[in-house]
């Protein structure tokens, strides 16, 4: 009888621990993931029409372009092919990857070359003299 109740207590302890150690990860899973986006609202200076400004937004090299007639856009500079940093070519109004000649238009979409998909776009707002990204 004694042995029985000892086993019972031990079993309860293990059962509760087991339940807790499975419930804990699941509860953590439900919590908000490290909020990446709203962690950083950054503001930057404006650029002239037709000009671009290279910035770093949350550790990602990015570029703000003031497109003639279409306003600002903020794009990641990380090429979607293998990750080289694209440059803005003022003359041809394109974004060019120096590594394997990936060409993107000013919306960030692929025009030619090996990149498989469009550049990441960051949401942006113009406030007075500043541009707020995030």
């Amino acid at each position, binding site marked *: 009888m004694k042995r029985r109740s000892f*086993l019972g207590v031990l079993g309860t302890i*293990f059962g509760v621990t*087991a339940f807790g*150690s499975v419930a804990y*990860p699941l509860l953590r899973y439900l919590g908000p993931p490290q909020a990446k986006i709203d962690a950083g609202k950054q503001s930057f200076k404006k650029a002239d029409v037709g000009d671009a400004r290279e910035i770093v937004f949350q550790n990602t090299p990015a570029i703000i372009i003031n497109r003639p007639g279409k306003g600002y856009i903020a794009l990641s500079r*990380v090429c979607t092919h293998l*990750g*080289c940093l694209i440059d803005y070519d003022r003359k041809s109004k394109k974004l060019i990857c*120096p*590594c394997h000649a990936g060409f993107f238009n000013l919306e960030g979409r692929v025009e030619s070359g090996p990149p498989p998909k469009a550049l990441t776009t960051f949401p942006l707002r113009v406030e007075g003299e500043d541009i707020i990204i995030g």
Partner: protein
Amino acid sequence: MRYIYILSLVILVSAATTASAGYREIFEKEFLSKPWSTDIVAESSCIECHTSEVMDEKFRSIPQDWRVSWHAQNNVSCHDCHGGDSEDASMAMSHKRGFIGSPNYTDIPDMCGKCHIGILKNYVESGHGKALIEEGTGPNCITCHGSHNVQKVHIDIINAQLCSKCHPYERAKIMKQALFLTDKKIESIEDDLADLRKQGVYPDREEKSLFNTQAQFRTLFHTIDVAVVKDKTNFFTSELNGIEDEIKATFEELSFRKKFSTFLMLIFAGSWAIITLIIRSKD
């Protein structure tokens, strides 16, 4: 009752065989010539012709060289460099379809530079490039990298045999020394990333930022200016250290996962043992 089932089975089998009778030939042919996964990708007409008997011996090994190249592994094919139309045999080598053929010695950098824009820029301004443009004698891309069998770059491409074709190796050696440590670091990070992949992690962000750093670093080499390389080494080292830190954090996370799972394993194995003992004590 079971005879009915067996009978229906026999009917099914014979029906299947009869139904297939007319198709048998087609199926056998299909099976022998087609793999299960996908249809064989149609060979380009460039390769078809260049591997055929009518082709001059000299040009016949080109497809084979290309097949093992870094370009082939990255889906860069004949027409990407040479132009022309690989899908239409009769127009394949038509200049109307942009066919270039084999370029002149001095035109090669432009051909490669169609894609490798950044490297072309540095090369053109370098001693190598100037010698080629002004005197028509300097080394072009294929002098060091080869043409059809282009391989992934390794620092040993800078070696006494190759460089001393044109000038004393000493100058190249200093360059190699300046590149050495950074290059080793890149290599060890590459190994770590391959290891992470094997362990089920998809380190694409690290891979991309490594490729960018490495590409910038290699582009820089094409200036063949030791002072520039030395000047930028600190910058590259700090970039690479950043990537290394992230990799280290990932390895630590993996070891935490292992410990956590082992803990759970022990808890459940313990529960199993205890319940087994409880059952014993009841019997």
